C-alpha cells in the first residue's frame, strides 16, 4: 500500500502515482495506444477537426497538435469560414524555425483546410472521419451550441472539446480543453470533464500538461489573469498611473505584465476575451470582476493599452511609501480575494491552482505560494484593506476561511510530493526551476520519508507539471546581487539540502525524465548516489553563459565522484556551458542512460538494491589535486563577461576541490556569492533582468 504526502498530478489524470511508474518500469500510458483509443486503429484512423482554425487559438493548436500527431497518421482538419484570414498559413515561418523546412512542410501537408458556411458541413469532411472536434470559434454561447449540434448530427460518435475561456461545460454541453497562450508552445490545458478521458491522457502522452479544473464560469487561468487585469485597471482609476507603468509595478510585485500581454496577444481579441470573462464572472461574483468603462471602451475599439512608439512615455512614476502601500492594496487585495474564491470552490487541486499562474500568467510564484509567504492573516488583512477602498468588491466572492486549506499537505507541498511503499520512496518535483519554496518543500519531503523509515529514494520530475528541469530560478538571486551575505545564504542553504540526498538515505537515485536537466537542478541531482536519465536528455551547466558561478556544489562534487581522466570533460561542461546528451555523459556524469522504460527499470533496480550492473561511484572526501590544471582547449569566450566567469568558475573549482569535503561547501558558496556582486554578473542576464524588473 503506497503512501503519499498528497495526491500526485498523475493521479488526477487517472494515471496512478509516481511510485507506480517506477515499480512498473514503464509510463502509465503511451501515445500510440491513446491515439488508437481516440482516433481509431491505424487502418481506420479518424481525424482531428479544429473549427475556427484560422483564429489565434485554432491556428496555434493546429500547429502544436499537428506536429505531435503527425507520426501517428492523424490528419488535422482546419475548418473555418470562407473569408477568414489565413491564420494557419501564418504559422509556417514559426514551424520552419522550430522543425526545419522538411518537417514543417510535412506538418502543413497533414492539415486539410476546409471551409463551411456555419450551417452545413463540407461533404469532404465525412471521408476524413472526424473523431475529435476541438472547437475554437468565437465566444458566443448559442453559436457554439449550434455548432456542436451540426457535428453531432453528422458524426454521432465525435468527441468534442471547447477551448472556451469562459463558459462552463454545463452550459456548453461539451467538455473543455482550455489552452494557455502562446498557443503554439504553451503546454498547459485546463480540462473540464467528469473524469479523466482518453483525450486528456493523450494530451499528457503527447508531452502536454493537462490540468483538471472545476466546471465554473471561467477557469483558474482566466480568473487570475482577467481578474488581475481588472485589478490593475481599478488601480489606474484610483491613481491615474498609466497602464505601461502599472505593468512594471505589477511585474515587480508578482511577475505578470497584464496590459502588455493583451497587446502582445492582440488587443482586439484579447480585450474582448478579458471583457467577456469578467462580464460573466461579474454576473456570478459581483463587483470583484465588474468590467470598467476603460475595458468596455477598449473591447469596442480594440485599442492597445500601451502608447504608440512615437509617444513613448516621458514622465516616470516613482512611488512614495504611501503610494506603494496603495499599489499593494489594489493589486494584492483582489488577487488574494480571487484566490480565496478558487480555494472555496475547490476549482482545482492546490498545486494546480498554484502552477497555472506560474506556467501561464508569468507569476514569479503561484498565488498559493504567495499567500503562504505572507500568511493567511496578512492576506486577509490585505483583502480587508482592499475592501476599504473598494467596498462593493467585498459584498460577494470573499471567503476568508478558505485560506485555511493551504495548511493542508497539498497546500504545503505545492511543488514537491513524496510517496513510498514502506521500502522505497519517490520525491517528485513539480517545478521546472529550483527556488526557495522547492528547497523548503524538498526538505519536508525528505523528513517525511525518513520519519516513515524509508531509506531508499528516487528523486525525479513529477511526470506532469515539470516537463524539464532548467536549473535555479534566477529571480531568487536578485537580493544576492546587492548583498554577498544573501548569496552565501542561498548557496549554503540549497547545498545543505542537496547533501541530504547523499547523506540521509541508504540509497538515492536521481532520475532525469524530461528534455533537459541543467544548472542548479543537475547540481542537486548529482548529490544522489546514482544518476539515471532518459538517453536523449540534455544535461548541462549553463551558468557561465549568464554569467554566474555555480553555487550548489557543482564546482567540486562531480569531480569527487569521477576519476581524474574525466575531469577535463567536467571542466568543459562547466566552462563552456554547452550541454551533453545523457547518453554521452555515461559514466563520468551519468550512471545509466537509456530509453524511458529501460531508464525507469534501472532506477527501480538501483533503488531497491536489485542487481543492476551499475556500481555506486565513491565520493572522495579528501582534497583533490590538479583538478583545474588542464581544462584543455576551450572555444573562445563570446564576451569579456564569459571570460571573467570562466576565470571565476575555474578559481572556484580550484579552491573547493583543494579543500576537504567538509569545508568545500562554504568555500564554493563564497565564490558563488562573490561573483554575484561583480560587474560581469550585474551586467549579465540576471543583472539585466533584475534591473529591468526591480529597479523601476
Amino acid at each position: 500500500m503506497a503512501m503519499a504526502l498528497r495526491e500526485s498530478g498523475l493521479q488526477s489524470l487517472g494515471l496512478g502515482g509516481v511510485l507506480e511508474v517506477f515499480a512498473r518500469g514503464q509510463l502509465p500510458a503511451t501515445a500510440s495506444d491513446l491515439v488508437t483509443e481516440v482516433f481509431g486503429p491505424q487502418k481506420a484512423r479518424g481525424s482531428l477537426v479544429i473549427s475556427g482554425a484560422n483564429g489565434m487559438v485554432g491556428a496555434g493548436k493546429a500547429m502544436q497538435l499537428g506536429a505531435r500527431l503527425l507520426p501517428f497518421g492523424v490528419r488535422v482538419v482546419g475548418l473555418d469560414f470562407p473569408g477568414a484570414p489565413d491564420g494557419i498559413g501564418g504559422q509556417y515561418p514559426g514551424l520552419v524555425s522550430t522543425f526545419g523546412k522538411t518537417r514543417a512542410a510535412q506538418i502543413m501537408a497533414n492539415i486539410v483546410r476546409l471551409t463551411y458556411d456555419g450551417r452545413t458541413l463540407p461533404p469532404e469532411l465525412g471521408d476524413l472521419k472526424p473523431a475529435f472536434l476541438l472547437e475554437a470559434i468565437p465566444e458566443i454561447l448559442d453559436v457554439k451550441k449550434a455548432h456542436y449540434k451540426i457535428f453531432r448530427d453528422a458524426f454521432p460518435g465525435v468527441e468534442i472539446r471547447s477551448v472556451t475561456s469562459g463558459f462552463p461545460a454545463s452550459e456548453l454541453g461539451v467538455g473543455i480543453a482550455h489552452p494557455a497562450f502562446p498557443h503554439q508552445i504553451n503546454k498547459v490545458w485546463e480540462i473540464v470533464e467528469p473524469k479523466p478521458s482518453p483525450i486528456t491522457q493523450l494530451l499528457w502522452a503527447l508531452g502536454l500538461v493537462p490540468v483538471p479544473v472545476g466546471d465554473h464560469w471561467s477557469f483558474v487561468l482566466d480568473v487570475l489573469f482577467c481578474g488581475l487585469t481588472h485589478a490593475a485597471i481599478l488601480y489606474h482609476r484610483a491613481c491615474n498611473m498609466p497602464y505601461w507603468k502599472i505593468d512594471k509595478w505589477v511585474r515587480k510585485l508578482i511577475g505578470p505584465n497584464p496590459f502588455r500581454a493583451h497587446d502582445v496577444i492582440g488587443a482586439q481579441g484579447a480585450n474582448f476575451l478579458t471583457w467577456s470573462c469578467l462580464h460573466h464572472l461579474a454576473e456570478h461574483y459581483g463587483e470583484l470582476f465588474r468590467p470598467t468603462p476603460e475595458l468596455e471602451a477598449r473591447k469596442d475599439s480594440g485599442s492597445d493599452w500601451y502608447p504608440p512608439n512615437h509617444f513613448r512615455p516621458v514622465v516616470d512614476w516613482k512611488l512614495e511609501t504611501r503610494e506603494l502601500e496603495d499599489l499593494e492594496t489594489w493589486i494584492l487585495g483582489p488577487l488574494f480575494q480571487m484566490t480565496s474564491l478558487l480555494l472555496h470552490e475547490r476549482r482545482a487541486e492546490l498545486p494546480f491552482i498554484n502552477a497555472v499562474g506560474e506556467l501561464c500568467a508569468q507569476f514569479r510564484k503561484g498565488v498559493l505560494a504567495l499567500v503562504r509567504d505572507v500568511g493567511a492573516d496578512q492576506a486577509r488583512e490585505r483583502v480587508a484593506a482592499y475592501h476599504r477602498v473598494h467596498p462593493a468588491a467585498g459584498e460577494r466572492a470573499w471567503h476568508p476561511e478558505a485560506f485555511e486549506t493551504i495548511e493542508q499537505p497539498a497546500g504545503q507541498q505545492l511543488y514537491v510530493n513524496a510517496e513510498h511503499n514502506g521500502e522505497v520512496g519517490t520525491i517528485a518535483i513539480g517545478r521546472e526551476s529550483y527556488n526557495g519554496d522547492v528547497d523548503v518543500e524538498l526538505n519536508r519531503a525528505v523528513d517525511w520519508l525518513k520519519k516513515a523509515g524509508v531509506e531508499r529514494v528516487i528523486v525525479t520530475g513529477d511526470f506532469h507539471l515539470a516537463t524539464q528541469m532548467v536549473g535555479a530560478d534566477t529571480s531568487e538571486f536578485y537580493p544576492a546581487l546587492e548583498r554577498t551575505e544573501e548569496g552565501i545564504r542561498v548557496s549554503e542553504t540549497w547545498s545543505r539540502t542537496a547533501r541530504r540526498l547523499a547523506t540521509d538515505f541508504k540509497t538515492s537515485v536521481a532520475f532525469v525524465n524530461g528534455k533537459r536537466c541543467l544548472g542548479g537542478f543537475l547540481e542537486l541531482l548529482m548529490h544522489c548516489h546514482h544518476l539515471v536519465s532518459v538517453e536523449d536528455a540534455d544535461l548541462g551547466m549553463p551558468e557561465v553563459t549568464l554569467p554566474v558561478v555555480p553555487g550548489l556544489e557543482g564546482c567540486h562534487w562531480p569531480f569527487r565522484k569521477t576519476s581524474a581522466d574525466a575531469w577535463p570533460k567536467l571542466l568543459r561542461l562547466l566552462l563552456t556551458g554547452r550541454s551533453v546528451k545523457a547518453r554521452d555523459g555515461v559514466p563520468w556524469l551519468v550512471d545509466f542512460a537509456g530509453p524511458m522504460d529501460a531508464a525507469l527499470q534501472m532506477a527501480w533496480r538501483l533503488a531497491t538494491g536489485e542487481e543492476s550492473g551499475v556500481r555506486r561511484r565513491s565520493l572522495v572526501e579528501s582534497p583533490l589535486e590538479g583538478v583545474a590544471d588542464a581544462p584543455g582547449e576551450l572555444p573562445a569566450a563570446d564576451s569579456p563577461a564569459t571570460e571573467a566567469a570562466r576565470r571565476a568558475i575555474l578559481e572556484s573549482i580550484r579552491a573547493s576541490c583543494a579543500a576537504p569535503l567538509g569545508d568545500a561547501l562554504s568555500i564554493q558558496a563564497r565564490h558563488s556569492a562573490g561573483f554575484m556582486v561583480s560587474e560581469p554578473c550585474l551586467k549579465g542576464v540576471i543583472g539585466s533582468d533584475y534591473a529591468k524588473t526591480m529597479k523601476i
Partner: protein
Amino acid sequence: MPAAQSMFPNARIPYGTWGSSFFPAWQTSALAEVNIAQFAGEAMNRILGKRRVSTDRLDYLIIGSTVPWHWKFWNAPLVSSCVGRRLPGFHVEEACATGLLATLAAGAEVQMGAAEVVGVLTFDRTSDSPVGVFPERRAYQRTVPLADVWDNFGFDPATSGAMIATAGKAARKYKVDRREVDEVALLRHEQYFAARESGALDNVLVPLDILTVQGRPLGRIDDDLGVRRITAGELAAMRELDTCVTGGTQTHASDGMATLLVTTPEKAKEISARPEVDIQFVAKSEVRSAPSLMPEAPVIAVRRLLDRTGLSMDDIAVAHSHNPFAVNDVIAARVLEFDWRDMNKTGCSLVWGHPQGPTLTRTLIEALEEAVALGGGYVLIFGCAAGDVGTSALFKVS
C-alpha cells in the same frame, strides 16, 4: 470681507487639485529634450494622481501654450490622450497672460454648463523653440525665418520695439529709481527662498522624473534651475541693459507646466481634499496701454477691476503678479498706492522664470495657497503680456 458679485457663480476651483512643475531655466534640464505638450499631459496625470483625483472625472480640457510644439495641430484632444483620457477641448493663447486666460475660459465653460470638470493645462518649452519659415512675397528676403521665442522677444511688429525697451520706457515715464528696482528684485528673491524653505510651495511644486525614449532616466525636474541667491551688491553692480533693467531685475526664459481644475460648486466639494475651502471667480479686466509701455498696462487693468468691483487694495488679502521686470512692481505700488513688500510673498516670475504659457497658472496657484493659509480673502492676480497688454483677475477664497 466686503461682498463682490461673482462673474461665474456656478464655477469653482477645487482647492488642492493643482500643481506645477518646477520651472528650470531654458536649456538647463531634461525638459529641453521633450515634446512639452506630451510632458505636460503626462505630468498633469501624475499630479492629479498625487492629489488623488481620478482623471476619469474630467470631461473637458483647455490647454494653453505660446510656443509651437510638435503635433500642435491636434490640440487639446491629443494632449488629453497624454493625460490618459479621450477628452474634447481647445487651445488658448495670449502670450504671457495665457495661464490666466485658460483658467477664466474654463470658468466660462463650467458657468455656461458646457462641462462639469474642466482641466486647465498650460505649458511651454522656450528651449530650442521652433523656427518658422514664412513665405513673405512682399519682403525683400521673400522667405522669412523666425525663431519663435527670441525673435519675438526682440521685435514687436506693432511698435518696432523690443520687449525690454518697454520696461526702460516705462521706468523713464514713472521716473523709477534704479535703487528701488534693485531692492524689489532682492526682496523677491528673499521671498522665494523663504517660501521654499518654509514648505509653503510644497503643495504647488511637484518633482517629476523624465525618461529617455528607451525608458531610462533622463533627469529629474525638482528645482527651479537658474535661480540663485543674490545680494544687493551684486544687483547694484549689474550693467543696465535699458533704464532700470539689468540681468538681475528681469526674468529669464524657462520650461515647465502648471495645471488646475475648474468645476461646479458641488463637484468641487467631492473632488477637493478640503471641501470646506471655496474658491470663486470674481472678476476680470484686461487693457492695452499706450505703445511700448507694457509694464504700466497691468496696473491700469487692476484699477479698472477695483473700480468695477467697488473694492480697494485694502480689501485684497493676497496679491501676486507676473512681473518680467522689477519695474512692473514699482509702478504698480506707486499707482495703486500700496507697499510692494506686501505682494508676491512666495516668489514670482521675476525670480523663478517665465515659460510663458504656465507662468500665470503657477502664479495663481501660489496665490491661492497663500490665501488658504491666511484663512481666505480676495486674491488679486495681474500681469503684462506681449502687445502692451495688461490683465488682471480677482478670486475669492473663503
